[in-house]
């Protein structure tokens, strides 16, 4: 049995087509327009804050507001087709308005983690060269430092309670300003999102602008998003995802949902939509389904989700292992599990079978797991309902071919380990401005995932190793080079090596081996230094001091030796 015969299709549910055909829409702009015409005044997005304050936009409103934003970008800010627009915000009503507006304008959306430090932001800005930035006021204080030397001409500022009714919006604003003091004054020239929309709308009416013309002038193979994954050399690397990539992966993922009806569902989005999994499945997929999408700006601590579960009849949610595990440990959740829930989707990191079993026991509903990469928009495989095989990543999704290849690019014998390679409509167009990096992962029409896997006789895949040094911390990629570069800027550190080690709660954690120059250097010093330059998930959770590091005869630090040592030690325990 070879992968070309697609043995896995025998395990698809009765209502899952092995091939889903051509993209149902040319561009995401067409998708948004068409869906909004179908569902009109029905609620499309509801932002739910921890205290239950909320705001809702209908399909028509999101469509019209994103039109205004598209016109603002093209006519007022003067952007042209293909210009990059960075979007840096957590979930909220402003997210779909801005994201859809950018895509309708024919511009390229660059998602940025709002928790990034100014240095991390700067790396992405230098690489993507955005012409505009849409950012939440809480994070705007990082902009001056992040854009030093490479200014962004248009800055649009939004807020957490954007588009909520006036009274809750005012209360949230006052609490943030005077009680939390989480909003600092914005010190760069900027425009507020509602003002930008008003300007766009005024221009659209005065000049009789047809927004459809923007997205009709681009094609399915034009880039929609630059989705950054970090890079093996420590430099940010943006995966170019086209309109067709995203539409197809959304359709492929929607093919797998079970028991849901178009226009009737209420979905919960606790995962951040700047991450590719929630972007494709929640933002695009839930919208396409005509669902009311309940957006959670910040699910930490998990008790902030209580009001959303109480106030809305959630029928579908997506999450990561951390979320499912966390909820099954919350008394308020286990005491009265959501009774309308039909289905849940997991991604980002491996869902532990124990967590999945506990979730199904408490809610009585299945959770289906997918596997994928940023470069594949992201979903590649899923676990067929009722035919799970613990330890595997399941089988390829419809219209997708997976195979395990050897060093020469030939498929290995079934049951033998090889690098998992993918072919399908969701595979990216390449890395932005990095043809060498693209050439390394795209060979003979295959995308090489860097994961070493095995395919069984039925077409289920299992990951056995990883080719790249990348560490995956609860759904986020961490590249050792970036952390090592940061560590060596500390004057007390001579050299360092960073690896990922297995961890029960996050899949892997970052571990740093440090050779100190300054004998008084402590673990806390190392962490504090990292904290100043890196987002929380990249900071080494474990630090070990060594007098020397294993090196090859040309002086290259051997991370694989350290990893082997670590695994042997963990096995011994």
């Amino acid at each position: 049995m070879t992968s070309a015969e697609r043995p896995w299709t025998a395990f698809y549910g009765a209502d899952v087509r092995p091939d889903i055909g051509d993209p149902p829409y040319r561009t995401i702009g067409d998708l948004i327009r068409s869906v909004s015409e179908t569902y009109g005044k029905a609620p499309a997005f509801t932002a739910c804050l921890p205290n239950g304050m909320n705001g809702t936009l209908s399909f028509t409103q999101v469509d019209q507001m994103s039109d205004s934003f598209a016109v603002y970008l093209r006519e007022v800010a003067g952007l042209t087709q293909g210009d990059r627009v960075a979007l840096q915000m957590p979930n909220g009503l402003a997210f779909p308005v801005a994201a859809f507006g950018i895509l309708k304008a024919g511009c390229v959306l660059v998602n940025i983690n709002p928790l990034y430090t100014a240095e991390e932001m700067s790396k992405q800005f230098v690489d993507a060269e955005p012409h505009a930035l849409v950012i939440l006021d809480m994070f705007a204080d990082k902009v001056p430092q992040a854009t030093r030397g490479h200014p962004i001409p248009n800055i649009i500022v939004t807020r957490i309670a954007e588009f909520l009714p006036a009274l809750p919006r005012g209360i949230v604003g006052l609490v943030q300003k005077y009680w939390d003091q989480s909003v600092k004054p914005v010190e760069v020239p900027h425009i507020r999102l509602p003002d930008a929309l008003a300007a766009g709308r005024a221009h659209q009416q005065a000049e009789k602008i047809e927004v459809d013309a923007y997205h009709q002038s681009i094609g399915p193979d034009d880039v929609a998003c630059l989705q950054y994954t970090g890079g093996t050399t420590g430099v940010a690397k943006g995966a170019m995802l086209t309109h067709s990539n995203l539409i197809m992966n959304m359709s492929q993922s929607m093919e797998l949902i079970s028991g849901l009806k178009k226009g009737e569902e209420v979905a919960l989005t606790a995962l951040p939509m700047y991450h590719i999994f929630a972007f494709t499945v929640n933002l695009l997929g839930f919208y396409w389904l005509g669902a009311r999408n309940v957006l959670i700006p910040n699910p930490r601590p998990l008790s902030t989700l209580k009001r959303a579960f109480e106030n809305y009849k959630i029928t579908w949610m997506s999450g990561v292992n951390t979320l499912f595990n966390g909820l099954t440990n919350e008394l308020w959740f286990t005491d009265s599990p959501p009774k309308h829930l039909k289905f849940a989707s997991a991604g980002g990191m491996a869902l532990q079978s124990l967590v999945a079993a506990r979730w199904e026991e408490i809610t009585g509903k299945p959770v289906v797991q997918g596997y994928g990469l940023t470069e594949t928009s992201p979903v590649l495989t899923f676990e067929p309902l009722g035919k799970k095989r613990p330890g595997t990543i399941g089988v390829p999704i419809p219209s997708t071919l997976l195979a395990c290849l050897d060093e020469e690019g030939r498929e290995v014998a079934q049951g033998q380990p090889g690098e998992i390679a993918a072919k399908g409509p969701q595979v990216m167009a390449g890395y932005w401005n990095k043809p060498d990096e693209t050439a390394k992962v795209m060979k003979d029409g295959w995308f090489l995932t860097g994961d070493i896997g095995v395919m069984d006789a039925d077409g289920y895949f299992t990951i056995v190793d990883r080719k790249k040094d990348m560490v995956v911390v609860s759904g986020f990629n961490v590249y050792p080079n970036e952390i090592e570069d940061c560590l060596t800027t500390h004057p007390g550190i001579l050299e360092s090596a960073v690896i990922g080690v297995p961890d029960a709660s996050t899949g892997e954690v970052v571990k740093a081996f440090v050779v100190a120059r300054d004998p008084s250097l402590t673990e806390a010093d190392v962490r504090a230094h990292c904290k100043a330059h890196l987002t929380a998930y990249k900071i080494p959770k474990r630090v070990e001091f060594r007098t020397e590091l294993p090196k090859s005869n040309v002086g290259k630090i051997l991370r694989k030796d350290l990893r082997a040592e670590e695994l042997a030690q963990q096995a011994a325990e």
Partner: protein
Amino acid sequence: MVSPLEQAVLALMIFAIMLGMGASLTPRDFYLALRRPYGLMIGLVSQYGFMPLIGFLLATLLAVPEAIAIGILIMSCMPGGTTSNIFTYFSKGNLALSVLMTVTSTVAGVVMIPLVLVIYATALDLEIPRENIIATLILLLVPVGIGMVLRKINANIGAVTEFFGSVLGVVFILFLIVSWIPRNWQFLLETSGSTYVAAIGIGAAGITIGYFFARALKLHPRNARTVALETGIQNGPLALAIIVFTFSGEEADALTAVPVLYSLFIVIIATLVTFVFRRANAAAEQRLPDGLL
């Protein structure tokens, strides 16, 4: 003493605060508290078992005049007060359980207060003003019910009501403390040390014993904190009303010393306990690892 106008203002404030508290609740919260009536029973035992015993011990051990001793006894066998719900809300306890405990202990009070007093003070024949009991229940249940309905109608109206209710709650607590001290300054100076010990001791011991009793019976920490506040915080105004109804003249004045002093100190003690409970609640929040989410 408090003037009728002030009383009306306080009642109105409590009504508005409870409206806000109610808007944080759903029928499911009550259903869950009733489904496992264990917590409710522990609360009742703590309320009418331990509190009167604490009062009796304080009255016996402290060498106090008889009028003060009776004041201590009456204070200690009162049901839970509405303030306990406000403090439970701020300490992030189980508000539905707190409301249910206040209601049950108030209703049960009609039988339990005379019964407990028979045990600890055989000669004491008290007049229990039914209208006060009913007023307490109405002032609690009506706004809570309206608050819940508001939230059901529109989650934003509910959340805004809750926000203003909680702001008013803070104002109310500060108002109680700030207005009470200057008004009763002379009384504070004249009151004996043992009366202070008794007035502070009832609340402090009630909260402490209520908490450890509930924990010992394996109640969830959040519910144990609720039982603690409910046990320690008594219905002060009801004690005053009972005294005014039953006694007269100088005797009544002497009897009110403990309830009046208790009412001041319980607000201070409960405020401090609330800070401790909030911290315990935050410490018990699940630590989510850094990463996606």
